[in-house]
């Protein structure tokens, strides 16, 4: 029986191998025709329209723009929520708030995409007159709200594991609650908090439906959040729904982009793990 179960466990290894093989093999098909240099440094992405151009930077910059906006929302709010829940909130308050945040985390991302497009964008258009229907700002803000629970719960885990006697030591010196939270607990939990940030950002980078719906389909070197952008993930969706023949160069572009996406998220996840391992305080 042991071998049966071992086979099951190896499915996960096979999955990783499968992902790597797929991306590299199909990506190889792409890089045969387009130089990696052009791909990684080009600033025009028009793989379907002529004149064809295969620079991936517009997609990367689109992803990063939305992610940065999301981070600006989620990281502070998520951390402060975590501090509130861990250091201030009474038990019955926590028992109400935590499930609500879990619900927030479980909502499918198409729903968030819907919300960004049909509610947030019109709302913001009242403030920013130049806001286009598809824009990075709405997508970024809603994505930020979407990953708040992740930042909050991971940061809270980090703070709860700070031993109680550290807080007691600080209180015994005449520190107030906010001083204990911000000058003892948060610094003591910092490695876990940073790991939480990194993992949440990685999630934002890999998010697909929200940006497909709300951020647009125009690859551009994005700096202006009021305009539409196309993220790496949205491009993959766009092409999947298109009619590019299998095996063609256009078809292979999704694997090349997928490869960049996979590498970025993998690096961030590994970074997160490494930070926790390296800097974790041995209490």
């Amino acid at each position, binding site marked *: 029986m042991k071998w049966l179960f071992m086979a099951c466990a190896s499915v996960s290894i096979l999955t990783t191998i499968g992902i790597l093989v797929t991306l590299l093999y199909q990506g190889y098909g792409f890089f045969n025709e387009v130089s990696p240099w052009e791909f990684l440094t080009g600033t025009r992405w028009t793989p379907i329209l002529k004149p064809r151009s295969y620079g991936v930077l517009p997609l990367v910059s689109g992803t990063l723009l939305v992610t940065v906006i999301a981070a600006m929302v989620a990281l502070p709010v998520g951390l402060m929520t975590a501090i509130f829940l861990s250091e201030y909130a009474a*038990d019955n308050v926590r028992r109400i708030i935590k499930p609500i945040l879990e619900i927030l985390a479980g909502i499918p991302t198409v729903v968030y995409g819907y919300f960004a497009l049909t509610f947030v964008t019109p709302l913001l258009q009242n403030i920013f007159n130049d806001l286009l229907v598809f824009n990075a700002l709405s997508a970024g803000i809603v994505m930020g709200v979407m990953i708040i629970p992740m930042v909050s719960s991971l940061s809270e885990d980090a703070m709860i594991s700070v031993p109680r*006697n550290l807080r007691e*030591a600080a209180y015994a010196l005449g520190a107030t609650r906010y001083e204990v939270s911000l000058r003892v607990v948060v610094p*003591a939990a910092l490695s876990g908090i940073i790991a939480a940030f990194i993992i949440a950002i990685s999630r934002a980078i890999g998010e697909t439906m929200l940006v497909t719906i709300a951020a647009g389909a125009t690859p551009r070197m994005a700096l202006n959040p009021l305009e539409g952008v196309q993220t790496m993930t949205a491009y993959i969706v766009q092409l999947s729904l298109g009619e590019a023949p299998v095996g063609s160069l256009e078809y292979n572009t999704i694997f090349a982009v997928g490869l960049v996406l996979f590498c970025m998220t993998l690096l961030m996840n590994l970074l997160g793990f490494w930070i926790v391992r390296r800097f974790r305080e041995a209490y």
Partner: protein
Amino acid sequence: MGNSTVFNIRGLNVYYGDFLAVKDVDMDIKKESVTALIGPSGCGKSTYLRCLNRMNDLIIGASVKGQVSFENRNIYDSNVDATEVRSRIGMVFQKPNPFPKSIYRNIAFGLKVNGFTGDMDEAVEKSLKQAALWDEVKDRLNDSAFTLSGGQQQRLCIARALAIQPEVILMDEPASALDPIATLAIEDLVRELKANYTIVIVTHNMQQAARVSDETAFFMVDEDRSGYLVEHDDTQKIFTNPTNQRTEEYITGRFS
């Protein structure tokens, strides 16, 4: 050693929820003396100690009735700020709990929080000297506190408490997590500190109480598991000729 009292405790009762943990304690604690609190485990000595600097406020469900007068004011008065109480009455805990910061910053923390405006380096050095730790760490003040041994960490915690110049230092079994040599170092320190500070020390080690303290208070549990004060007197008297029979039984080890 002066004759004035620092603490006047009257009718102190401590409840955890509905459970009465400490019952009806009256006690006076003299200035610049060492008072040991002894008794079997679970008799409320630590709970009682934590009342003296309002650390029990931090425990949900704990409530304190009665009066703890510190320098003629009840620290449990509604217009008294707990952080003020704690900056005047310091505490050292059973398991050394230095912050995950450098040695220097452990001591500087209390000073910064309390708005210290003087020379920080000088203040850190002074506290470490008072805690008899300066010579051992003076070349590595920026090292993490966790590079110190258990005994050194505890002396660091004492230095940290001393830095903000409290009147009183409460110690909750400060040597119980340490080896015998480190324990003796702590006891020597307590004897030195009493020249300038009032010290109240909880200990389960009777010999330690006899060695270190000027007065001893013996606690016990009654049938309802509430702790109460049996006898409080000069250490010499408690250990050679106690008034209460239960005290004598405990001291001579007829039960523990």
